[in-house]
């Protein structure tokens, strides 16, 4: 565990990574299987390939935010402006499309808007490092949502379904597999590889564990923070694209509460808010656990209030359980 110098760095060595996988991701896999067995048991319609893939469409669109959110949390920071960024990007998409631009250009504007929102967060946070990310992104959250409301003035902007390829982003399928699912898998794979297989990923772990030590080790902490916040904005815009495609229109009040959903998925996946902890596959598993749980309960028409209670309980229990385990493991070691 400890290197020769006696320092413990939580940047992961291969065997250490495996150990963590055994503890946490396997636990999530167990939960995932349990959720699926329960769903199959309570609803005869659950185990249908078509139905399950359609179900992924209901939660994958917001899951694109989870990917960069995992990075943000890994740094030990938080970004709660993502929901508002989604709304603003979607509004810009609608406005530019309805102003007569081709859909391709509108999509580009949407992505640029998202990236710009994220970059503004990053700029403020890297220029004024003493500010808490929670407060800054709370401010920009209100700012972005306000801009969206000014732009659309309580109205909707729509007509996206006229463009077939854009509608297919959400509704299109290759065989039974939704296009969105394929795109998500590709994005998730890239994010996972970057986090676990590159120097950039190891630097994120280093920053999350101890920003000061990382800085003195020669890591360009502020540059990485800026990149990650911009990335978060960009992927909020990706969510905006899929959301707009699914609804065929956009409004200023869409995507409210997405920030907390994204954060809770990442935290359930083991990427804790203190930073420097967690593995990417856990976050992906958590997305599917929560998504399928909601879908299964929805299939047997559980009242939405009750569903919130169940999901809240699951979150608490799952996040609590491994902490109890850790304590036990250490005790056992000490006894030996």
């Amino acid at each position, binding site marked *: 565990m400890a290197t020769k110098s006696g320092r413990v760095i939580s940047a992961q060595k291969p065997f250490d990574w495996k150990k963590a996988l055994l503890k946490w991701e396997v*636990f999530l896999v*167990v*939960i995932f299987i*349990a959720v699926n067995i*329960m769903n199959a*048991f*309570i*609803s*005869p*319609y659950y*185990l*249908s*390939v*078509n*139905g399950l893939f*359609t*179900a992924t*469409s*209901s939660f994958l669109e917001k899951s694109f935010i989870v990917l960069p959110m995992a990075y943000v949390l890994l740094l030990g920071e938080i970004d709660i402006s993502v929901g508002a960024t989604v709304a603003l990007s979607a509004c810009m998409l609608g406005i530019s499309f309805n102003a007569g631009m081709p859909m391709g250009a509108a999509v580009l504007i949407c992505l640029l808007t998202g990236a710009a929102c994220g970059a503004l967060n990053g700029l403020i946070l890297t220029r004024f490092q003493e500010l808490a990310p929670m407060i800054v992104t709370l401010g920009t959250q209100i700012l972005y949502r306000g801009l969206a409301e000014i732009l659309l003035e*309580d*109205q*909707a902007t*729509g007509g996206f*379904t006229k463009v077939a390829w854009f509608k297919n982003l959400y*509704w299109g399928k290759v065989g039974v597999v939704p296009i969105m699912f394929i795109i998500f898998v590709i994005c998730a794979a890239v994010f996972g590889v970057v986090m676990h297989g590159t120097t950039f990923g190891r630097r994120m772990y280093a920053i999350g564990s101890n920003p000061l030590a990382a800085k003195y080790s020669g890591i360009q902490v502020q540059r990485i923070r800026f990149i990650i916040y911009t990335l978060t904005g960009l992927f909020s815009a990706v969510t905006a694209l899929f*959301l707009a495609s*699914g*609804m*065929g*229109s956009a*409004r200023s*009040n*869409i*995507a*409210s*509460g997405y920030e907390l959903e994204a954060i809770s998925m990442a935290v359930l996946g083991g990427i804790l808010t203190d930073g420097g902890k967690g593995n990417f596959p856990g976050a992906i598993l958590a997305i599917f656990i929560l998504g399928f749980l*909601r*879908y299964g309960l*929805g*299939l*047997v*028409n*559980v*009242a*939405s*209030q*009750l*569903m919130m*209670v*169940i999901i809240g*309980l*699951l979150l608490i*229990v*799952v996040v*609590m*359980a*491994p902490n*109890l*385990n850790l304590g*036990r493991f250490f005790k056992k070691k000490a006894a030996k």
Partner: protein
Amino acid sequence: MKKKLVSVMLCAAMAMTLLAGCGGSPSDSDSAAGGDANAPSQGEDSTSGGDKEQADASADDADQNGSDQATGTGGKSCAILVKSAGNPYNKKMIEGFQEIMDAEGVTCVVKEPEEASAEAQIKMINELVAQGISSIAIAGNDPDALQPALEEAMNQGIKVCCMDSSVNADSRQLFVNQAGIEIIGETLMEAVYDITGGEGQWAILSATSQATNQNAWIDAMKTVMEDEKYSKLELVEVAYGDDEYQKSVDQTQALLANYPDLKVICAPTTVGIMAAAKVLKDEQTDVKLTGLGLPSEMADYIGTDDAHSCPYMYLWNPIDIGRLTAYVSLALVDGSITGAEGENFTAGDLGDYTIEAAADGGTEVVLGPPFAFTPDNIEEWKNVY
């Protein structure tokens, strides 16, 4: 390890107990009938929708699902999807819908999203499609955003109608309109004219800016107001309380602060009118209130003296909307109507209805004119709904 196991089991057990409470438990005899009766109707769905797994699954496992207790009528199940949970008006609509479905022996599925958003409704539509429902009756949170999801549902052979707040003409087969838009516009305008005495400032407190019904009524009122008779009335603002109590309170207070000469607030939404009534009472202003409200919630505020802010208000019976929607769903499912203009059907005790062309290019049935609640009749109605 033990603790890990225990916590997993605890978690599962907790979820199961919660589910057991609401899932309902179909008896064995039901399930036998369900398995047989379900197969043909699902078969029809599958030919149009092409979803073989669903048909197989429902034939085999109809006994497992509380929502699929098929009875003698051929395993039909009709769903009602309202705007959001926790709204007494929606509850009454569901009550009426459920009453007719129970009487006809058809499985009734109730869906209430936790928030009044189109996103939440799309998710629920997908869930309903996946469980092979026969029909969906929806009160839309957005006229256009549900179109792709509802078109998908109709492609699967599911009958789609809407009530209370319509979705656009392409997303539905028929709209169950609580009252003609023009007639509501005229009635409310007449009330404002009467209460102001024919001149002065008035404001509208609406729900969300995207609520189809609200906007249609407000437009209708504006059209009526163009008449010479109303020329001395000045509509100062349309405020949006988003059908949230606190936001409606804030908006009402803002109206009072911004327009000291305001005479009347017209709130064509049950949440808005109640919030406004509370504010007017607390502030003890002489601003008057009218609009569309639930009698049980508004009873304390209705009266002609200065202590009461609301001389009279209107509403239709939400239970009757639910009932009529149920009859429409059933008629669509058994094929006796298709939602085309000119078709007739009988809605039990509610009488005979004819499908008419709607202003948005689709079709609708109109429940009837709005009903006035006055100090004279509020006592008897406040216990009804």
